[in-house]
């Protein structure tokens, strides 16, 4: 199968590989997919006090298109508010990377990873706020 130049570029030079500690309160972690399906994406966002995503990191087990999709979204979410990040659609990811139809699920997974990371961050914040109120 032929890969698009953009997929190849992300595969050869993946952006923002790595991770933060799950314990950090300003970090939201999304882990989606399953080894049995052949892809697992872990996306972490680090959110500033102003509610803007300062940084993002990923690790992915999966095909080249899955790696490229997650690498791309780490670039895209940076500098966005949480709601702006949630507005990123899988179709935009697929279009940017010129994914063929059989690889659309990779872009869906990347969108799910953003949602999961934001949800995790928000849960942590709510828990922290409740803890503060209770104190």
């Amino acid at each position, binding site marked *: 199968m032929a890969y698009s130049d953009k997929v190849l570029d992300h595969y050869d030079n993946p952006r923002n590989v790595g991770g933060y500690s799950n314990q950090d309160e300003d970090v939201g972690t999304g882990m989606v997919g399953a080894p049995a399906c052949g892809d697992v994406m872990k996306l972490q966002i680090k959110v500033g006090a102003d509610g803007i995503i300062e940084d993002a990191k990923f690790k992915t*087990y999966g095909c080249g298109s899955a790696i490229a999709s997650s690498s791309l979204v780490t670039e895209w979410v940076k500098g966005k508010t949480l709601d702006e990040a949630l507005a990123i659609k899988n179709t935009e990811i697929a279009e940017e990377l010129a994914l063929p139809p059989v690889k659309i699920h990779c872009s869906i997974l990347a969108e799910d990873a953003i949602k999961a990371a934001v949800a995790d961050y928000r849960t942590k914040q709510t828990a922290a706020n409740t803890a503060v109120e209770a104190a």
Partner: protein
Amino acid sequence: MNRPIYLDYAATTPVDPRVVGKMMPWLFDNFGNPASRSHAFGWAAEEAVELAREQVAALVGADPRSIVWTSGATESNNLAIKGAMQFHAGRGKHVVTVKTEHKSVLDTVRELERAGCDVTVLDVQENGLLDLEAFRAALRPDTVIASVMFVNNETGVIQDIAALGAICREKGVLFHVDGAQATGKVPFSLDELPVDMMSLSAHKTYGPKGIGALYVSRKPRVRIDAIIHGGGHERGMRSGTLATHQIIGMGEAYWLARDSMGSENERIRSLRDRLMNGLMTLDQVFVNGDLEQRVPHNLNLSFNFVEGESLLMGMKDVAVSSGSACTSASLEPSYVLRAMGRSDELAHSSIRFSIGRFTTQQEVDTVIEKVSAAVNKLRELSPLWDMHNEGIDLASVQWASH
């Protein structure tokens, strides 16, 4: 362009230049139809086809008259199984085969099932081998035919054809063997093996694509219906003008294989061991399939925590196959490895290396380097590798399915 290193000999082999040389004169100079009885063009072609029949028969230890030309092992598998079920419809409608067979057997029996036959598809053991007692237990009074492959195309595992055939004889069941991956790799003689039919292909053994044969035993005499009808060629079992140049190519390829098999297998075994030892220095690498009951040409490895397709991408200069069929919409890993009870992760992480006549030690060393680099790179990217290193059992994790 720099060509990739070819380690996919189980998919197909280059046509040996000596074979190409033998085929060439039969395209323009000697173009006759072997079925033309009335002139020298036909006679010459017929003589060459009969010589090729003898060459093919010699490699597999059979009577040349038991060789029926076909377009390849796919057609031979169809002919053997459908032809036997049709001819022996009065005897029963049960057919037995194995989960790790080639699709040309599995899809054929599925088609028969739609047409009203009873189909049993047996499991294999973890090493890929069939359990003889389970096989015996599956044969019923109404079983017409059992079909088991000699050498598996994905793992190179060799089934115990002599023992399986003996069970079939005892139970009065026809025994068909898909030998596509065995020729030139496993020495055997059909005169001695209790096998009724065997499918053969040229292009896995340095012959051209699009030509194969079905061995149909004469002693004991095996009878099947044709599935392709026409001029009654090949004693009525397979009509269609014989592809003279292809047949001559197959004959020469099998003749060369018979000559070189012994020394070639030893050379290939040492290359395979070199490749295996080189790659097994990586952590968490597993061999799929029995290592003893296996042709030396095959090395099927799972690189845990690395997905197969991304690994293929990381070794662009190496031509191999992945057991991960993520390229299809189904996202299903290799059914052969799944049938062996491999976890989905390991099945998704598998690569089949297959070595052949033209593989060099230099190539093997380059492949070890490239694969190791790609595996290390992808593990750096893999959240599963991190989890493994943190001591997390992946089986205990609740994965969100999608």
